[in-house]
């Protein structure tokens, strides 16, 4: 039997998970009259944040290598616009989705090449990627385009498909049974989450990512192909972002230049709250998943309250971020003292 000691990273992850339950429990107690206790409220958080889960998974992968990818928000906007305009032109749903993912691969290859092989700082490269994505969205179409049933019935049916759960329903005021349901995008997001988790944990590539984030020079000496691995990390991030873009579009059903503004910061804050360090080498997608859920719970609570100003979710998320960063730095100080 193996016995494992709890290290400080596990403790941090546990704090994140505990915080989510505290927040959600608090919401349940405070707003039980407004339907917060129904299972559907939780599922709605998953539905609205399905895209964010995929994007944050990609970002976690990049952050493990001590990099950053701030182009994700504009890439999501570009994906949505491409989907909307493509469907307006009468291209099928499946070819469009494949095209989106191919775009993601190309986008990631260019960024990854510049970062991995040319040694340019990730922040600058992905900032250029961010400008490019946002600008390209406007080049494709500068108006807001909505996807309707007449345009593409397949995509419309995906977006409106309800996956009904057999448990956890409730009777509404009129005595009608409301069954809780999920949407397609949640299933996609959860599959992405699971695959990323397994990839990071059990594959050579996943372990190489941690090694590079821990210490790049030791990774080189270990004989790892650092340049290639870094490039692949950015390709993976862009591909997951593209999948996230499709999920996001299934939820909003429109494309516009102003879409997904600040999405990259949501994703980064989710990952940081989930215990991923920007210095690399530490973190996993389970933490990130709970980070997204915490973000979602906060905005859900503010929405349920109805009286708070729209800027409160931002302030609360920032306050949480502050809390977590301080806890992390205390942990780091303790660890340094032990040595």
């Amino acid at each position, binding site marked *: 039997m193996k016995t494992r000691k709890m290290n400080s990273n596990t403790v941090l992850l546990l704090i994140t998970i505990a915080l989510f339950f505290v927040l959600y429990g608090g919401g349940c107690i405070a707003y039980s009259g407004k339907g917060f206790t129904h299972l559907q409220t939780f599922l709605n958080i998953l539905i609205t944040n399905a895209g964010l889960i995929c994007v944050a998974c990609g970002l976690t992968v990049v952050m493990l290598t001590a990099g950053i990818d701030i182009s994700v928000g504009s890439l999501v906007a570009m994906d949505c616009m491409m989907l909307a305009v493509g469907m307006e032109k009468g291209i099928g749903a499946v070819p469009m989705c494949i095209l989106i993912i191919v775009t993601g691969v190309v986008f990631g290859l260019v960024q990854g090449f510049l970062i991995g092989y040319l*040694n340019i700082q990730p922040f600058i490269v992905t900032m250029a990627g961010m400008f*490019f994505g946002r600008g390209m969205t*406007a080049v494709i179409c500068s108006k807001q385009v909505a996807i309707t049933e007449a345009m593409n019935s397949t995509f419309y049916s995906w977006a409106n498909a309800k996956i009904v759960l057999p448990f956890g329903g409730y009777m509404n005021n009129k005595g009608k049974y409301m069954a809780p349901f999920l949407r397609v995008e949640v299933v996609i997001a959860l599959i992405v989450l699971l695959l990323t988790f397994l990839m990071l944990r059990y594959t050579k590539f996943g372990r190489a990512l941690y090694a590079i984030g821990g210490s790049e020079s030791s990774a080189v000496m270990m004989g790892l192909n650092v340049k290639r691995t870094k490039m692949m990390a950015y390709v993976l991030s862009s591909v997951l972002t593209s999948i996230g873009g499709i999920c996001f579009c299934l939820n909003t059903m429109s494309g516009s*230049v102003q879409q997904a503004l600040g999405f990259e910061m949501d994703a980064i804050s989710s990952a940081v709250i989930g215990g991923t360090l*920007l210095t690399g080498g530490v973190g996993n997608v389970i933490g990130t998943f709970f980070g997204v859920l915490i973000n979602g719970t906060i905005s859900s609570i503010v929405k349920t309250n109805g009286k708070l100003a*729209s800027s409160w979710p931002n302030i609360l998320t920032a306050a949480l971020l502050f809390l977590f960063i301080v806890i992390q730095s205390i942990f780091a100080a303790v660890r340094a003292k032990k040595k």
Partner: protein
Amino acid sequence: MNTDRKKAHFLTKVKNWPLLLPVVSLILVMAVNIVHDAATGVNPLSFFIISLNETTSNGTILYGRIIDILNRGSEVAILALGMTLVVSSSAGTDISVGSVMSLSASFCCMLLAGYGVSSTNELAVPLVVGVLAALFMGALCGAFNGTLVAYLGIQPMVATLILFSAARAIGLLLCNDLIVYVRNDSYGYFGGFTGPIPTPIIIAAICIAIVAITLNKTSMGMYIQSVGINSKASRIAGLNSKRIIFLTYLICGLFAGVAGLVNSSRITSADSNNIGLYYEMDAILAVALGGNSLGGGKFNLAGSIIGAYTIQAITTTLYALGVSTDQAPVFKAIIVIIIVAIQAPPIKAYFRKKSLEKGVAKA
């Protein structure tokens, strides 16, 4: 023979000149303007023409594309000053400056108009109070960032991410979710004109002068660089590394407050959602364009300032070429990538190898 050697000497001097990259990019932008003007049949030198024009609202003012670039580029130039110091001392970037601009402007307008008032012609408090409040708010945010980075040892990007998302939101709360208009001529002064010259240019010039004099006449510049190169060694050498890093963030926040004041004075209102949007990106870009490494250490203030005006020149040129505001980022992205790719170590090494081979072949 002698002239040949002199020529080679001059070439290496030019090659190693730290301002080469920003100056070359600025010249390229001007060249594009001249070619475009010539192609469309306008006077090719119209880019450089500065004239005095009569206007109904502002009296006689200076007019011309260069004046416009200097005027519009003021905020980014002011931000780039603080950003250069931050990058140099802590090897990180302050991504909160845009949001801090918005918060300072909101706080200032909220005080001038009174809480909950959305439009006013009369100032509720003297203008000086509002201006000082904006600067104070900027410095306060800078101090917050500085404490996190210097004393708690948090990575700069994460530390400033907090205010990046919170500052703008707090500004909205201060303004009660409204756009606050301060329709008073005295408030419009900072974004208006002093005699014939746009005031933002003067404010930017004053800020640049203060920083340049401080860095040149005191050892502050050297301290900041030495902390950036090796903070442990600097501490052992007797410098208070933490306090120096803290100070650079404080200065950066203060300048963000100045930039916010100028930006909101231009539109005589506090539009919390839009003031300073993406300005942090432009400021960081200005630092990188100026030939400064984002990895900290040595910095070149002149480079950052030229970089800031180059960005504005690129934007103005794109508008002159008929590119829409939404589409301009595409070209900006391509230009950024080309500029940083030229600077990338592997490409530089490749060219060095090439020129060495050439030299060997000659011999």
